[in-house]
Structure formats: C-alpha cells, structure tokens
C-alpha cells in the first residue's frame, strides 16, 4: 500500500537502483540496439571487403537515397502488419500512382489544361493527384478487407495484379519522361539542401530533440513518476546530438563533382571561381522520409488512432468490445498505406527522372521484409516505425554492399532471402528469452 501511494520513490531506492544495469538506466531498447549492432556490423564487413569504399560519404549518400522509397512504405506497412493484415499490392500501387502523376504532369496539365510545360503549379498538382489515387485505392482495398471481410492477403494479391496492369494500361507500357524539373528534386541527388542549410536543419533538429527530451522528463516529474538519472539523460542527449550532426557532416562531406559545378555555372552564364567547391548535403527525399517517420511515430504513440491500431492488433475482440470501430480503422490504415505509397512513388519516379513500366516491381517484398526485419510481428500488435526504417536500411546496405563487392545477382537475392528468415528467427528467440510474445 505504501509503495503504490508514493510511486515517485521507486527510482530513489538505492539498493535496487544500483543493481540495475547500465542499459536499463539509459532505458534504451535492447532490441533496437541489436538491430543497430547488426547494421554497423554489415557496414564494417562491407567496408573491409570493398577496401574502404563502402563507408565513404558518397556511398552513404547513395545508400540513404536508395533506402527512402522502400522506407516510406515500410512505415505504413508497420500499421498494416500490426493489425494482422498484409499489403502485397504496394509495388503495383506505386506503379499506378507513378503513372498517374507522370501522365498528369506531362500530358493532362500542360496539354489538355494548357498550363504549359514547366508551369510552377505542375509538380504540386501532380503530387496531389498521386496522393488522391493512392489514398482512394488504399481506402477501397481497406473497405474490401474491413467491411466485406475478404482476407487482406487475397484483396492485395488481387491488387498486385490489378494495379500493376492498370499502370501498364494507362501508359501503354511506355516510359513517360522527362518528369518536371521541380518534381525531380524529390528523387535524391537532383534535389539537396546544400551545405549551409543542411547544418541549419541539423542544428534545429538537435534543439528540437533535446527540447522534447527535457519536456518529457519535466512531464514525468510533474506526475511524480520515476525518471532516469540526469547523467543517463545527458548521455542519451549526447548520442542524439552526435548522431544527427554526424549524419549531416557525412552528407555535407560528399562534394558535387567539379564537372557538374562547371556545367551549372555555365548555365548561369558565369565562370566557376578557382578552387570553388560545393557539397550536396541533405537530400529533400531524406527530409521527406524524416518528416514521415516523425509523423508516423506520433500517430503510433500519441494518437487515439495509433492506440487503436495496436490494441486491435493485440486483441481484435477486446478492441471491438471497447467500442472501437475496427472496420473503419482497417479502411483508415489501408488508406494511409496508399497515401504513403503515393509519396514513395514521387521519390521513386523522381529518382529515375521518368515513369517506367516496371517501377516498384518486387517492392512489396522489400517493404514487408523491411518491416519484419525491423521487428514488426506478423502475429500482430508489435512493431515500431524506426525499426521498419532501420530494417529498410539494413536490406539496402546488404543489397548494395553485395553489388559493390561483385556478388552475382542471383546470389544477392539468395542472401537477402536467407537474411530475412534468419532475422525473424533471431527475433523469435529474442522475444522468448526476454519473456515477450
């Protein structure tokens, strides 16, 4: 009785506190730590195998922009899998969204509506069109799953065939391009913040992260809950600061090739000053991914929608009996997935600078693998957004690392497949040991 009435004393009981391990004091998820460890290991091994070419700013930059498209979709797939569904149609939906946006910006807006190529509104209207297409397709599939109770596996397996070929039908299988210049900024290397703005964004991110950390601590103290010791809080803050600024520093260390700079100066009718250099910095696509990651994490942890998603995944009957409309929830989840697929289609087609008929092929497998490697349990109820993004990063590192080492293409896929199965097995063993599900 005395203990529960004064919960704030929990952390101050010195005998138990001293027994706590270093990691528990930091309150860092050991599972996340394991994944980061695996990722670091993959990077170090490839760095040795490629004689140090893997961990160059250039390759890290490329790795980052290659991961974005799959990572965006993986964040949505977390919600889908957490509620015990699956979406096999994301790659095909991506093609349909990409086709819709390509046609909108090269044909419908400039020719039929007469805006003219290069009109400043074109990229934004196109993206909006893509978002509508993706959201409507997703919501429709969610309605089939939620209200007509057709299993998601079947609905989206059908969707995989349907949307892949809707895209083909819309474009007659042709490649559509070049895409709008502003639109292409979302592709990665064609649109970056540059050195100064990258630092500005990095510093703002650090300030916001530290503010969030201290706000959460103050909130806990306000309610009389146990808090971490100050030194632990400081270490977490330091890790975040070094992480963010280190990432910015690496992206800023990748310099724009001199030939390209000369070309750009020439285009403006100027000559390049002697010794001039410029760095790429943070790509817009990565900023988009970060914004989505934050948004999705807030939805998962701090909104009713997220709470209901995880409750439904843990026990659908309990959710229903608690008055949650699980059918409408299913529609919302699939609609959100569709919207994210559309954003992913922006990044993917912008990176290629055109819409090609095979865009997004096999993406469903990459996305599901990323979510699952990132710790999303297919049994439902468990999964994190940052885990899925890390999963996508690990997959991409393996793939491009093997390509750099010169592993044959079939062997690459064999290894990736094996890693997926292995990762899930390790996860099962881990959960059993730690007493989780």
């Amino acid at each position, binding site marked *: *009785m005395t*203990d*529960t*009435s004064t*919960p704030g004393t929990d952390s101050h009981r010195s005998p138990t506190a001293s027994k706590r391990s270093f990691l528990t004091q930091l309150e860092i998820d050991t599972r996340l730590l394991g994944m980061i460890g695996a990722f670091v290991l993959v990077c170090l091994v490839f760095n040795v195998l490629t004689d140090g070419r893997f961990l160059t700013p250039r390759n890290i930059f490329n790795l980052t922009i290659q991961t974005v498209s799959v990572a965006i979709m993986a964040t949505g797939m977390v919600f889908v899998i957490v509620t015990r569904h699956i979406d096999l149609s994301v790659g095909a939906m991506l093609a349909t969204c990409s086709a819709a946006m390509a046609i909108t910006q090269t044909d419908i807006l400039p020719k039929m509506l007469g805006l003219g190529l290069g009109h400043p509104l074109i990229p934004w209207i196109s993206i909006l069109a893509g978002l509508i297409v993706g959201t409507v397709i997703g919501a429709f599939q969610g309605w089939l799953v939620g209200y007509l109770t057709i299993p998601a596996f079947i609905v989206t397996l059908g969707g995989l065939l349907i949307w892949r070929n809707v895209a083909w039908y819309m474009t007659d299988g042709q490649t559509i391009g070049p895409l709008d210049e502003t639109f292409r900024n979302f592709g990665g290397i064609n649109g970056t913040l540059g050195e100064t703005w990258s630092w500005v964004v990095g510093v703002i991110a650090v300030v916001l992260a530290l503010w969030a950390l201290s706000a959460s601590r103050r*909130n*806990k103290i*306000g*309610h*009389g*809950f146990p808090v971490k010791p100050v030194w632990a809080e400081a270490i977490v803050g330091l890790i975040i600061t070094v992480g963010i600024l280190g990432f910015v520093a690496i992206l800023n260390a990748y310099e724009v090739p001199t030939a390209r700079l000369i070309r750009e100066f020439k285009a403006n009718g100027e000559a390049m000053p002697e010794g001039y250099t410029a760095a790429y910095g943070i790509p817009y696509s990565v900023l988009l991914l970060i914004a989505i990651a934050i948004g999705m994490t*807030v939805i998962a942890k*701090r*909104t*009713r929608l997220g*709470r*209901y998603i*995880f*409750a*439904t*995944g*843990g*026990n659908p*009957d*309990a*959710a*229903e*009996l*608690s*008055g*949650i409309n699980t059918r409408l929830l299913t529609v919302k989840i699939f609609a959100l997935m569709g919207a994210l697929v559309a954003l992913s289609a922006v990044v993917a087609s912008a990176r290629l600078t055109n819409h090609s008929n095979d865009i997004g092929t096999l993406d469903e497998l990459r996305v599901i693998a990323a979510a699952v490697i990132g710790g999303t349990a297919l049994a439902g*109820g*468990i999964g994190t957004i940052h885990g899925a993004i890390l999963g996508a990063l690990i997959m991409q590192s393996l793939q491009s690392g093997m390509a750099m080492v010169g592993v044959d293409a079939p062997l690459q896929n064999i290894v990736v497949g094996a890693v997926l199965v292995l990762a899930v097995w390790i996860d099962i063993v881990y959960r059993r040991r730690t*007493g*989780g*599900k």
Partner: protein
Amino acid sequence: MTPLVELKNISLSFGGVRAVDNVSLDLYPGEVVGLLGHNGAGKSTLIKILAGAYQMDEGEIWIEGKKVNIQSPRDARRHNIETIYQTLALADNLDAPSNLFLGRELTTRFGLVDDAKMEAETRKIMARLNPNFKKISEPVSALSGGQRQSVAIARAVYFNAKILIMDEPTAALGVHESKMVADLIKELKAQGLGIFLISHDTREMLDLCDRVSVMKNGTLIGTEKVGDVTEDDILSMIIMGKARDAA
C-alpha cells in the same frame, strides 16, 4: 423503486437455435443478481445483449425506467453499463493504463493521448483496488490472472459504472485473488451499483448474490431470493430445468 435495468421478453436466435428465448429479468441498485445454468444455457448471450455485443431479435431493454436502444458496446457504455468478460477483454500487448482507458483515452489540449495523466490515474485507482499492483507500464501479458482481472475491474470502477456485468470474474483466479474480487463486489454493491454476476460456482453465488436466476436451453427457469433457497434447490433447478414450486 424503479429497477436499474429491466430486460423484457428478450429473444435471440443464432441460425435455428434460440440461444435466448423470451427472457425477462430485472436488477435494482445495490443488488447482485446471479445468473446460473449449464454451458450453453444462454447466460452469456443474454448479458452480451445488454452489453451491446449482440443485438436481440425481440424484446426491450429499460434502464432507470426509460426504454433504451443498445446497438453497440459504445451505446452500452453511454448508459453506464460496464462489462467484465470471461475472456478478459484486454489487449495483451498494451500496458495497464492503455487498457484501462481503451476507447476513452484522456487527451492533451492538442488532442494527443496523455499517457502520463492516464498512468497517474491508473496508479491512483490501482492503489485502491489492488495495492500489490506494481507493473503499471508493462504489457498486461506479463501480469497474473488476478492482476489482469483488476485492470478489467478498474475500468468499470473508474468510469463510474452504474450497471456492472461480470461474466465468470473468478474463473481464472486463485483462492486469494477470488476473495479479493468477492470483496470488491461487496464494496461496489454497497456503493449502489447493480451487478449481474455469472458463475458456475453455486456456493460463491449464494454468498454474493441477493437473487439468482437459473437458465436452461435459452429459457429462464426461475428467479429466487437467495434466502429462500438452498444450494440443493438451485442445483435441481439447473439440472432438472424446473422451477422450485413445480419440482
């Protein structure tokens, strides 16, 4: 005195089976009414109609003298009806506060869920219901049967239920934990709640209830005041399916 709940001529069929057949029951404030019967007698189906989980084919539900329309669990909650299910309707992957407030989360002024506030409220109510309850921020899958049950009960108590439905609340519990639940039922009763209790344990029912109703094959055999009957009378009603006077 107006009854808290009146169930009038309730019927519900699943396919060709009449799971509940023209059953009428009432419940007064500060009263515990026990529902007894074999598995499949229709007890759980009947109370799930009141809880909004099933919709009846025929009949009326009156709450505090007014006819009400209960179509969903949400409707039932609006009439201050809380249910503690046999299967413990908890999301195993969430912690106690998330379960306690599931469907009725406290939010901050920005509309985000206020976990800290919910945790504080959970600690408060748990200190009252089950002082041994410590694992506030762990998934409820890590809790014992009794602790899980106290989360479910806390839900009913916190939201000021007037009508409480308990479907086998002690089925999964040990002796000590069962006693805790029994004490709690008595306390809630003293506060003026009306409680429908379902159990297979006839002796426990005679101890806790004011009246017991016996069901068999979807029909109501009879309702008796606890003081008027013996355990044997009840058992014969359950087994023979005949009202006491006829037996």
